[in-house]
């Protein structure tokens, strides 16, 4: 009762605070039927899959829209103890880099593969910001199947954005850095001479989706923030927003905000690819990891690559241009027609919209204002379609509804502003709670948006949910944009901090893998059937070929393990029915558990530190007899000669199971 009163008072105070200094009107903004419109009955599917960046937890989170229900957390750049990703022997290679094994990253942006500028439901690309990497997820299995490290870069922020037929995924560096073949051991004072801003173009195989770092462009040493490829008539071009054209290297919040305008850099990627084909560019020696997950062996491999081709500003003189853009542009978004490029000067009180046709004409007419580090600068007015005046404070990102409207997030004034792309008039504005970053309309950065919903991803969430100490979940807010005015329908908590997101209609993903066919399991340590279960000693390595099925392991008891042994539990889940994973955990394991999907084989390495009896069990409640799914491993002191034996739970009266001798190689 006391706590209820306290909460009541707390809410009143919170409301007072809200009405005092935060955006007004959420309550009135929610119409009476909002709950009904986001309600998805048990057993019914959502309309959309919403893939949301996991921010600093390094993963990708999948929500259903309009319900806002969390469907899955997909591990990409961080180890995940829930299923052993990055802990199991098969998945450890996914997190290898030229810096060694890296168990974490900061995941910012996502891009769905496209065909003819429309989302096609094949792959999802994700970037790692901290140790630059790009990942590819297969949407048949929702698994991370490939991770490519990006050399000559730091802060892989303007990434991973795709061309309209998924020819290339781009990775522009946020930090200008000395390239890998130049020593980075230089004074910071030498910033202007030694530091470069490298843009990477990763080619994607049309059929397999496999990535290959095709070439890089060594651009001036400024910071690249975000990017988008053109589409249709502008399809050969990529656009990058740049900040710190001052090339400052200290107190950037003052020193990088001196110039009235920074740039949007336009790069003709098709011409760049042709230059590389013609033999331009220098070969730079470097090191970067290429990690691939093979779905037939359920195993990842990591390869270190040694070289990359880098084009210089000089090579790119007819294929790379700067467009001045008001103050520190953040978002750089191309409308569905491919004609308009929206820059969001986050410190500017207006939104500049550029015209692709005008840009091309300005280049043809040599309508330049000068050069920036050898890159021609197009005159601002020559490329400008127009400016949205007084849209709000702190414009960050723009998405499109396919009906001629743009929606821009306003970080400082915490609102979403809808405006008309042609006449640049503001049509509507709705508050967010609070400090909105990215926006997402399903297909909203493609040539075919599904303009029904818009989601705002907020960086602060005060006063939205029950208090949870000093740290709160961040929030996403769902708006109905089917009418003239935006309507807030729902907000739901997210993992912090949500950056960009992508979404597609659920019925686009019809060919989901439901289980792995045991016949197709090519894992070298697969156990296809309980009769093949065995324990093999190879020196101090012990390989356990183990099976799991409702509701037992085979073998379920093992003796003869010694301190100093490296024990590999290769567990094959024999189930052939979907959503019947089995778990595997053993006392004293210093990594994690395994969660093995039907038909899959996963390996947990275990190194017991002291003699004793170690129980192991299934972690995932699999049947009424789940609690019985367990066994023991006996560990003897180093050097002891306890015979290696194991029992199979295959006798009617198994009070004392039959035992088999383990093999020794």
């Amino acid at each position, binding site marked *: 009762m006391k706590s209820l009163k306290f909460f009541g008072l707390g809410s009143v105070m919170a409301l007072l605070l809200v009405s005092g200094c935060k955006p007004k009107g959420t309550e009135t903004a929610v119409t009476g039927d909002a709950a009904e419109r986001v309600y998805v009955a*048990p*057993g019914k599917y959502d309309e959309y899959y919403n893939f949301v960046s996991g921010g600093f937890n390094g993963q990708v989170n999948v929500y259903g829209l309009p319900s806002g229900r969390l469907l899955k957390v997909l591990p990409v750049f961080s180890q995940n103890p829930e299923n052993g990703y990055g802990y199991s022997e098969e998945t450890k290679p996914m997190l290898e880099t030229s810096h060694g094994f890296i168990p974490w990253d900061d995941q910012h942006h996502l891009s769905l593969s496209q065909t003819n500028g429309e989302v096609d439901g094949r792959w999802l690309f994700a970037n790692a910001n901290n140790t630059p990497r790009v990942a590819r997820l297969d949407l048949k299995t929702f698994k991370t199947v490939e991770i490519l490290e990006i050399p000559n870069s730091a802060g892989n922020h303007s990434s991973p954005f795709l061309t309209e037929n998924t020819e290339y995924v781009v990775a522009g560096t946020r930090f200008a850095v000395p390239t890998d073949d130049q020593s980075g051991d230089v004074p910071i004072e030498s910033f202007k001479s030694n530091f470069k801003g490298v843009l990477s173009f990763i080619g994607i195989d049309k059929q397999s989706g496999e990535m290959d770092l095709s070439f890089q462009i060594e651009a001036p040493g400024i910071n690249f923030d975000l990017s988008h490829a053109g589409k249709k008539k502008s399809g050969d071009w990529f656009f990058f927003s740049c900040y710190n054209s001052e090339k400052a290297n200290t107190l950037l919040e003052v020193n990088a905000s001196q110039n009235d305008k920074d740039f949007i850099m336009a790069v003709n990627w098709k011409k760049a690819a042709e230059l590389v084909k013609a033999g331009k560019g220098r070969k730079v020696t470097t090191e970067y990891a290429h990690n691939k997950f093979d779905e037939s062996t359920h195993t990842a491999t990591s390869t270190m690559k040694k070289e990359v081709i880098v084009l210089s500003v000089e090579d790119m003189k007819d294929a790379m241009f700067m467009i001045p853009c008001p103050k520190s542009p953040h978002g750089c978004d191309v409308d569905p027609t491919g004609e308009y490029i929206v820059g969001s000067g986050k410190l500017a009180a207006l939104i500049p919209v550029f015209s692709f046709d005008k840009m091309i004409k300005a280049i043809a007419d040599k309508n330049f204002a000068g050069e920036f580090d050898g890159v021609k600068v197009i005159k601002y007015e020559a490329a400008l379609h127009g400016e949205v005046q007084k849209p709000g404070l702190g414009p960050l990102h723009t998405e499109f509804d396919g009906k001629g409207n743009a929606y821009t997030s306003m970080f400082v004034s915490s609102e979403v502003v809808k405006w008309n792309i042609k006449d640049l008039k503001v049509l509507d504005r709705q508050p967010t709670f609070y400090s909105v970053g990215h926006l997402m309309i399903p297909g909203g950065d493609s040539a075919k948006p599904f303009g029904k919903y818009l989601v705002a991803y907020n960086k602060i969430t005060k006063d939205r949910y029950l208090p949870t100490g000093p740290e709160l979940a961040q929030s996403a807010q769902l708006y109905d944009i089917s009418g003239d005015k935006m309507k807030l329908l729902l907000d739901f908590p997210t993992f912090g901090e949500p950056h960009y997101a992508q979404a597609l209609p659920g019925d686009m993903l019809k060919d989901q893998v439901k*289980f792995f*066919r*045991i*016949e197709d399991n090519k894992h070298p340590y697969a156990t*296809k*059937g*309980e*009769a093949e279960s065995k324990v093999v000693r190879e020196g101090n390595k012990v390989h356990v070929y183990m*099976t799991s*099925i*409702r*509701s*037992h392991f*085979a073998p379920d008891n093992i003796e003869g393990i010694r301190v100093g042994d490296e024990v590999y539990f290769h567990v094959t889940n*024999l*189930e*052939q*029915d979907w*959503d*019947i994973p089995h778990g595997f955990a053993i006392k004293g394991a210093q990594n994690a558990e395994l969660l093995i999907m039907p038909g899959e084989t996963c390996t947990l390495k275990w190194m017991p530190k002291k003699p004793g009896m170690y129980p192991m069990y299934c972690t*995932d*409640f*699999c*049947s*009424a*007899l*789940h609690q019985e799914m367990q066994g023991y491993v006996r560990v003897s002191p180093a050097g002891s000669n306890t015979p290696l034996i194991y029992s199979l739970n*295959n006798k*009617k009266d198994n009070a004392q199971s039959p035992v088999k001798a383990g093999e020794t190689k």
Partner: protein
Amino acid sequence: MKTIHSIAAAFLALGLVSCGGDKKTDSVPTASTETTATAESSGTNAYDPKRGIGKHENVDVSTFDPAMAAEGRKLAEVKCTSCHKPTEEKLVGPGWKGVTQRQTPEWIMNFITNPDPMIDVDPELQKQLELCLVRMPNQGLNDTEARQILEYMREIDGAK
């Protein structure tokens, strides 16, 4: 879902115990709701305990095919023998010895390719569930594989 399955199984078992074998299926929604609904809509009375639920009818067992039985045995060792012995001995599930005398070929083929909906309504399977407490997992068998396993079961029972 799997939790719900096992809860459903537990409920079912409880139902059987407390209501003395009431044949009405439980209404806990599961992923197999649709198939359950089909079974229910056709009415439990319409259930043919000799044929089961599935597409198999009139399975021809007039001759024995040893090659097929050999394939069936290989398959069984991957997918079945973790839980079933070729003898009468119960492991996780019942032993296979005698199954082809107790059940029709159609019933066996339907059950091993479509276990969930049949467990929900078949009186024999409900009795077995009460004993074993584990619902037989769907092993994703295609029609040929199911027929091969049936042939192996017939071999166990002495078909020549």
